[in-house]
């Protein structure tokens, strides 16, 4: 009977009966796809295609086999093996040695660029730190060599390949910060910092990964994917300059640049074992970037470099801070050069703390500070323990944390919510983004502040309650918060001077590198770095003795969670971190970057057991203990060996 029914239909009736359900199905599918990607799906696909094509192009152009007999390759270009040997020699050099080699014609710009591109492409295929390559890089290197041949002149950074954090504007390149809606909107200007470095002869060759919207410390987003930490592939390199730090730590660039709004330079440096310094905001003013939080309240947005050593950091900062060539590109930057003289043998007064009063740090990060302070004391410097609770009676640490979080979101997250609207959420940031968006609903935010947060404070986490309760109810509250911030800054300076300290040493973060899922849950970690953005003081990070097994063992009875949910998460995040980089933070008064660098160097000299990663060439030297080593570390050790640093 069914068959009979169908067969009695006319052909037109049959076609019609198929059209309707097909149409409905199409609309449903379209809705689902648009919900996933919005209107930007096409843009994402076009970008992915272009990205892969450029990666392949760079890979082939830097492959030793394709460079045989290329006259631009110096020190032997007759066989692929010869070229590879040269490349490996170049890649072993630190920044100062490489600069010297380039200045003395041992290598030329083209050869060095090929070497770094060759390595960076391999590194990227493992840890996904690069968002796209800069098409003009090879032409730039050729032009540098040709110009030198004609004029005999070299800039100070001649031929040094560097990576660019992808929120810095470059002419003809998109700045998406991981948001699909910003694709296919190439910038028409170049960031003055990048322009200056290029004018000095450095070669920008790639853009590096960042968190979606720049507002997390996991460098992951739907467009470019997730960047892994080269020390442990199951962990994040930090953020928002995470791609930059990961690439440099893996040996894929000569140096890196980044921005810091609440720890975005320092957290990746701590997670990846690099040196960085966040200057006072106006000491190095940079424009033409995506700031992450345009219109933020009292938070200093600073820019700086990633290097492997403090000496390299001094060199790069000294080159740009207060230089007239840079001031011509960016007139609003301070003309005060880095030249305050500090006596070499001067004994300093070093303040220190391991507990910021808001969020305790895990044993490894605590030990880093304690050991550093001990060794500085042994060298004759005076050490003074500080308690953040003593800075101001009016503002105890939890009140300062509230102040900070309210400065991060003066509009209670409305801008962030708008930024993420219509976007596919990154899998590692989903929780954070959803919470911010939910907060925009009046009823939800009301229930959150007066119902959920008081409960959370008692039963779950004081720190979670503090973050969730940070809210500018109206304009008067926002103004008052900013007035309070100004007042706290004055009290900080007064406290500092009353203790007569030259610099402060404190933990660089609450844990070493974390697995990908934890940053969205542990926003509380941003206090120990964000505090110094709110104060707008220089803050540097220096690697010290790596995490050891004892540190990890002590997580059980050496780190009290006080029944706090976030502290439990923190403990979990710090498990399995043996061997990972460990660091301390060095802080000074505003506009005292010179003193900060001085103390950073002292810290570096006193550190023991610091390692760096080197790409493995040839077969593995020693078998990896797969049984007792975390999977992420095994993956890392298959590609990188850990080499002790020599000072």
């Amino acid at each position, binding site marked *: 009977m069914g068959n009979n029914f169908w067969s009695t239909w006319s052909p037109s009736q049959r076609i019609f009966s198929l059209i309707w359900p097909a149409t409905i199905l199409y609309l449903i599918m379209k809705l689902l796809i648009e919900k996933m990607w919005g209107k930007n799906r096409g843009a994402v696909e076009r970008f992915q295609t272009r990205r892969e094509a450029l990666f392949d192009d760079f890979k082939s152009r830097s492959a030793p086999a394709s460079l045989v007999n290329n006259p631009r390759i110096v020190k032997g270009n007759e066989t692929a093996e010869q070229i590879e040997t040269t490349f490996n020699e170049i890649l072993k050099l630190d920044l100062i040695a490489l600069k010297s080699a380039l200045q003395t014609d041992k290598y030329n710009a083209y050869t060095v660029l090929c070497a770094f591109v060759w390595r960076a492409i391999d590194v990227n295929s493992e840890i996904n730190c690069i968002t796209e390559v800069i098409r003009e890089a090879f032409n730039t290197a050729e032009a540098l060599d040709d110009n030198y041949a004609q004029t005999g002149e070299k800039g100070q950074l001649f031929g040094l390949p560097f990576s660019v954090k992808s929120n810095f504007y470059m002419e003809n390149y998109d700045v998406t910060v991981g948001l699909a809606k910003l694709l296919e909107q190439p910038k028409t200007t170049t960031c003055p910092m990048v322009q200056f470095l290029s004018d000095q002869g450095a070669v920008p060759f790639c853009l590096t990964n960042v968190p979606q919207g720049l507002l997390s410390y996991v460098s992951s987003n739907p467009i470019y994917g997730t960047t892994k930490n080269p020390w442990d592939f199951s962990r994040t390199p930090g953020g928002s300059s995470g791609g930059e730090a990961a690439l440099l730590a893996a040996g894929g660039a000569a140096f890196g640049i980044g921005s810091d709004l609440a720890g975005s330079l320092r957290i990746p440096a701590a997670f990846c074992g690099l040196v960085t310094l966040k200057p006072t905001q106006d000491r190095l003013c940079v424009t033409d970037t995506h700031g992450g939080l345009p219109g933020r309240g009292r938070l200093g947005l600073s820019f700086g470099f990633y290097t492997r050593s403090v000496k390299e950091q001094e060199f790069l900062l000294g080159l740009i801070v207060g230089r007239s060539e840079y*001031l011509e590109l960016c007139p609003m930057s301070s003309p*005060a050069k880095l030249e305050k003289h500090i006596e070499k043998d001067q004994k300093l007064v070093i303040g220190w703390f391991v507990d910021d009063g808001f969020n305790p740090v895990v044993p490894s990060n605590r030990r880093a500070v304690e050991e550093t302070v001990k060794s500085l004391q042994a060298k004759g410097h005076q050490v003074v323990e500080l308690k953040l609770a003593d800075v101001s009676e009016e503002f105890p640490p939890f009140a300062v944390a509230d102040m900070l979080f309210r400065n991060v979101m003066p509009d209670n997250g409305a801008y962030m919510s708008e930024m993420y609207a219509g976007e596919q959420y990154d899998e590692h940031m989903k929780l954070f983004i959803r919470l911010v968006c939910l907060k925009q609903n009046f009823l939800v935010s009301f229930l959150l502040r007066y119902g959920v947060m008081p409960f959370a404070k008692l039963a779950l986490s004081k720190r979670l309650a503090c973050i969730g309760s940070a809210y500018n109810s109206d*304009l008067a509250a926002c103004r008052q918060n900013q007035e309070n911030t100004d007042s706290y800054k004055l009290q900080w300076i007064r406290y500092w001077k009353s203790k007569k300290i030259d610099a402060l040493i404190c933990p660089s973060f609450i844990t070493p590198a974390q697995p990908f899922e934890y940053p969205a849950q542990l926003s509380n970690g941003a206090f120990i770095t964000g505090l110094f953005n709110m104060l707008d003081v220089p803050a540097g990070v220096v690697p010290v003795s790596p995490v050891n097994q004892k540190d990890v063992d002590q997580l059980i009875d050496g780190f009290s969670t006080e029944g706090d949910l976030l502290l439990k998460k923190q403990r979990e995040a710090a498990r399995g971190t043996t061997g990972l980089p460990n660091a301390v933070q060095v802080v000074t008064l505003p506009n005292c970057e010179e003193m900060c660098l001085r103390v950073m160097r002292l810290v570096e000299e006193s550190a023991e057991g610091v390692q760096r990663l080197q790409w493995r060439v040839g077969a593995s030297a020693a078998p990896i203990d797969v049984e007792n080593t975390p999977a992420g570390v095994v993956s890392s050790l298959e590609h990188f060996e850990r080499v002790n640093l020599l000072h």
Partner: protein
Amino acid sequence: FYVHFSNNRKKLIERLEIVAQRRRDDLSKNVEQARKAADKLDTQRRDWIGSLDFEQLRDELQRGHVTCVEAIRAYFHKAILAHEKTNAVTCFILDAERQAEELDEQAKLPYYVKPPLFGVPLSLKECLKVKGYDTTRGFVQDAYHPATEDSIQVEHYKKLGLIPFCQTNVPQSLLSYNCSNPLFGTTTNPYDSTRTCGGSSGGEGALIGAGGSLIGIGTDVGGSVRIPCHFTGTAGIKPSKMRFAHRGGGASVPGKPLIDANDGPMAKDVKTNVEFLRNVWGDIDFQSDRDPYCPPVHWNESVYSSEKKLRVGYYIDDGWFTPTPALQRAVLESKKHLEAAGHTVIPFYPPRLPSVMQLYFRAVCLDGGQYVLNKLLKDIIEPTIRFQVTLWMVPVWIQRILSYPVSLVFPRMGMLMQSLTRDTFELREAYADIEAYREEFVGLMMKDNLDVILCPASIMPAPQHDIPSKVVSGVSYTCLYNLLDFGAGVVPVTAVSKSDEEKLINEYPETDKWYQITKKATLGAVGMPIGVQVAAPPYREEAVLRTMREIEIAVTGK
């Protein structure tokens, strides 16, 4: 409720009137004490000291031909004369005589090296903190609350040898460009007592304009140094905020970012400003050590003394408020002077001024004006700003609703009615837009390779006392450079002429109420001084001063 409120307010006002009267009586006594001190100096000697200009007096003090005590007494006298004419002074710092005596005693010691500005009298705007003296900002409620310490800057000036000898009047809350408050009354323009001296450093402008001080310090958040200089025929500069320390400042709206107040020197001429800043910035480490947020950026003599020809961008109309003819003529005359000196002067157009005005008001009154309004409602409200206060009392959302019909008739007024911030989202947006605008503006200057900007100092010459609160939007020429945080100065160039008045009558627009008020206020202003404004990006104040100085030399010949 209203009856209850008005009864409470009446009682409050009665109490405040008593305090205000007591304060005015104290001022009278204070003036008498200053007069006694001044009378200790021989008349002929006093007149001679009073005739010296800044450099001459400084040199005589350095050589010991004039003692510090004599200098202070001479300027007590001159300030009293100026005060009688304009009501500029809120308090004579009688401690100055003791400080002068101390300096004179130290000068006798064989090893003593005189600081560079040894013994020079200095007047201070009342909101600058001096230990033991009030900082009321024109609020009766803040009277009799003396500062417990000097601000860093006042400390620094004393170290350089300067002697603060009096405090000068301000408008209530510092947020107007007239100079009246219920505590000390109205300060008048030395050229015409029916007209205002400007604000908020109006007392300073009047005092210097009337010859009562050689050099003074004002503060500027929207034109508060530059407008008084323009109205009173004096010269002054507002540096970008990073060039002075800020600890201990008395902000009118605490907590607002981006639109920071900064101190600025004011004097009879540019030369004095240069000499003052050369010494202050030559010793800027004093301030940096005490306020690390102040970067150690020293005076840059090579920029100031450079022989390199400058590229100057100029405009006579910013697209928001057309200045009266005299101000336009002043810019064009200055353009000629600069071209005659060999500089390149080309047209420049500040972008999107109407939206800049909105951003400025949103950032200055970041809480929709609530902080200031609350303070005013606990005080006697100055009659000349009652109009402004009335506007502030209208809820923001009502202003928004009314702005739409008003826009149909008066577009500029409608836009301004949308200027107060409504919520935190809009505030964040305003901050973001200000930062973006700064980059854009500097980018435009860099594209044309400009060193400085030349433009009108205001929209009109000095008006009557109640006009500023009715033409609040008239600060567009000065507040732009506060929003940008540029160094910006004003130098006197000319005076209103008969032909300017004729042009005003025949050509000046009357398209809306503001233009009508401005036109009417400018009638009868023949002879009033007119200045021009010069501005440059942060840390380039030396280029501003150089340009101002060249204009000054071309105008005065010295």
